[in-house]
């Protein structure tokens, strides 16, 4: 674990040294995409303007109208990274300043520090651990979702469901695991089989997370 973090820090350092090149490569397509978006919205609004039945009708809004302005990519990575942790029914963290986040991607866990390379990750059932500062760490079990690590040291985690690890009930998890194993044995068709396998995967991950607590 410690070794892994050291590797990450080294990685962050090496990316720092080549800041100028990186800033150029990451910001060039970014700018282009922003331009493309502006153009696309403009052409839509122009077409709308020509098609509207009454001249007084207002133009519609699009989701980008309501977004907060994006942060600049700083030349050197900041001390702390910014974390947004969203669920459909809850906002767990919004613009929180934290030290480090461990994210369970489908291709393996990875840690995010300030200045991490831009990454999009698909999450698997597992533990997201948020290191708020040197002494405090919060752990959440997430079912699935996505995580975006942006060039400006902002990380967005989007989970369908996430609960604090200490709220998991050990007995219920073990019972769930046994139940789904039973279901897999008795599965009649592919759908039931797949559902049972997903259940085993999630319960197994919960079990693993509880053991490692």
């Amino acid at each position, binding site marked *: 674990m410690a070794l892994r973090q050291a590797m990450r820090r080294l990685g962050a350092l090496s990316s720092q040294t080549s800041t100028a090149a990186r800033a150029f490569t990451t910001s060039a*397509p970014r700018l282009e995409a922003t331009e493309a978006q502006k153009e696309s*919205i403009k052409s839509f609004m122009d077409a709308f303007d020509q098609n509207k*039945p009454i001249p007084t009708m207002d133009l519609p809004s699009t989701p980008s109208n309501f977004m907060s302005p*994006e942060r600049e990519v700083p030349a050197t990575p900041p001390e702390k990274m910014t974390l947004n942790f969203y669920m459909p029914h809850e906002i767990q963290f919004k613009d929180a300043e934290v030290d480090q986040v461990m994210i369970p991607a489908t291709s393996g866990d990875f840690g995010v520090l300030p200045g991490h390379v831009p990454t999009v990750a698909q999450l698997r059932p597992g533990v997201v651990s948020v290191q708020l500062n040197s002494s405090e760490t919060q752990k959440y079990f997430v079912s699935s979702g996505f995580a*975006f690590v942006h060039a400006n040291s902002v990380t967005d985690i989007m989970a369908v469901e996430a609960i604090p690890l200490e709220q998991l009930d050990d007995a219920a998890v073990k019972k769930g695991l046994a139940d789904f194993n039973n279901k897999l044995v008795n599965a009649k068709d592919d759908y039931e089989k797949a559902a049972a396998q997903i259940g085993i995967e999630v319960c197994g991950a919960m079990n693993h997370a509880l053991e490692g607590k």
Partner: protein
Amino acid sequence: MPNFNLFPLVSPAVPHGSRLISLQVVAQRMKSVGNIQKITAAMKMVAASRLKGAQTKMEKSRGLVEPMVRLLGDQPGVDAERTLLVPVSSDKGLCGGINSTVVKYSKVVAGLSGAQVPLLTIIGEKARGQLSKAYAETLTGAIVDLSKVPLTFATASLVSDTILNQGAGKHQIVYNRFQSVISFKPTVATVYSSGEYEKAAESGMNNFDAYELEGPERSEFLLDLSEFNMGVVVYNALLENSTSELGSRMQSMENSTKNAKDMLGKLTLLYNRTRQASITTELIEIISGASALEG
């Protein structure tokens, strides 16, 4: 239907000084207007009490939308092979103009995709009533009664599955975004299919290729991401629209209550005036008759 004359005092047809049948009619109307006032006031209270909870839930659902738009872009003007239009409306009426706004904007957006009329999947009873005839040929279905139980992400995922199963390349969702209790912004959210997002990523139209991938390879990743994106957008749009519905209902019911109150005041005045006038006339008749006997 009898011809109610609400102003018998100025009507030449009614003999002056007689007790009028229309007084009963006025009394009946006063009663019915009073009842309507009670109903609209109660509807306003119900909408107001539900609004707070709905607003909190809706504001939390906004979180997921922003990172998605940042990564995948907001590009309503890019054409795809087939467009699917999703107007989001409410199931119940008596909520001001928000449903007709959605219908109006949907009609304009439907006219934008050239000669080809877009496919249409309607959410909500009200837009179905107004749009299903005009777009009968391209209508793929309507989803109603979503507001009967509290919305969950699972329900929204089912809805987005239905939408994605139509196989369109571009999906435009028209809904009312909640600004405040008195203001709602008609909004068009655009969600593309994974294939279109892949094309956009290759041509640098969005930021996707600036990111490293942790997970399956790009096309599979984008397939999962675009499905999740659709779920997120639909979930948010449904909540925004139902919150706007409550806000708009609160507003329009307040106006109705005020109108009913005004009307009741006018009717009461008319009723009392007419009653008093006829009593005065009768008194004059009696007094003048008595004084004639004395004299």
